[in-house]
């Protein structure tokens, strides 16, 4: 039986490279298969080690719980360490993710929308026709955490389900 479905992890921008490979390998070293680093693992590593956010902050940006973020982050480090030691290629792909850069928000009617035609730029809101639109990617990390285009923000089914059963909502949803 399949387990509980994974919550979609939010990624702000796709990585600039689609992978890495070692050079100057020892001659007797055997060529090994590539490792697949998931997008969510790349994002966890970027937020925790590059942007230097705490794991709790990083988890709220990615719309997952803090323990889940830690598991993703741990898996990322393990894979990278393995690739370093064994001289494997790293390919960044896969994972259950969605990208911020695909989404736009409208300042006048507060709706969110995506751009199905990647080649054409969006200039007006498809709902109200306002020009006051912004790409999600261009918002600061703090603004992003305030509102989300994903349905269940913060307390979907996870850490505060007990509170919800008792008729209380998570602090995030009260705002």
């Amino acid at each position, binding site marked *: 039986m399949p387990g509980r*479905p994974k919550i*979609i992890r939010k990624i702000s921008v796709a990585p600039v490279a689609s992978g890495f490979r070692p050079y100057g390998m020892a001659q007797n070293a055997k060529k090994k298969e590539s490792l697949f680093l998931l997008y969510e693992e790349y994002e966890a590593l970027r937020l925790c080690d590059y942007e230097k956010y705490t794991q709790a902050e990083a988890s709220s940006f990615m719309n997952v719980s803090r323990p889940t973020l830690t598991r993703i982050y741990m898996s990322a480090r393990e894979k990278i360490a393995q690739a370093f030691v064994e001289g494997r290629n790293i390919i960044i792909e896969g994972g259950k993710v969605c990208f911020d850069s695909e989404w736009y928000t409208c300042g006048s*009617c507060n*709706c*969110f*929308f995506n751009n*199905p035609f990647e080649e054409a730029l969006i200039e007006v809101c498809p*709902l109200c026709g306002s020009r006051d639109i912004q790409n999600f990617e261009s918002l600061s990390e703090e603004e992003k955490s305030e*509102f989300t285009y994903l349905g269940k923000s913060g307390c979907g089914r996870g850490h505060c389900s007990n509170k919800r059963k008792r008729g209380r909502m998570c602090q995030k949803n009260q705002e």
Partner: protein
Amino acid sequence: MKVAITSSGNTLKSTLDKRFGRCSFFAIYDTLTDEVEFIPNPNKDAEEGAGPASVQLVASVPVEKIVSGEFGFKIKSLLVELRIQMIVVKDADKTIEDIIELLKH
């Protein structure tokens, strides 16, 4: 161009249905003729696969935009492939009339 709006009832005064796959009705609004048609959703009580089945239903109309409160993960990748634009409206008190009014801009 046709726009699908997920509706909780079959009148213009009905409010937006927050869910996409299991909404009660789809209001199909034609921007050219200014006509609204209500299609009951047969997948309302489906246990599984309501989202993809609903996508098939609205894609056969065919629509270019869908207004709803929420889109599931399965639906998102399907709609991106079909090149149907998703519009997420968080304000669940909006009626179908309000949204059509906004769409006219």
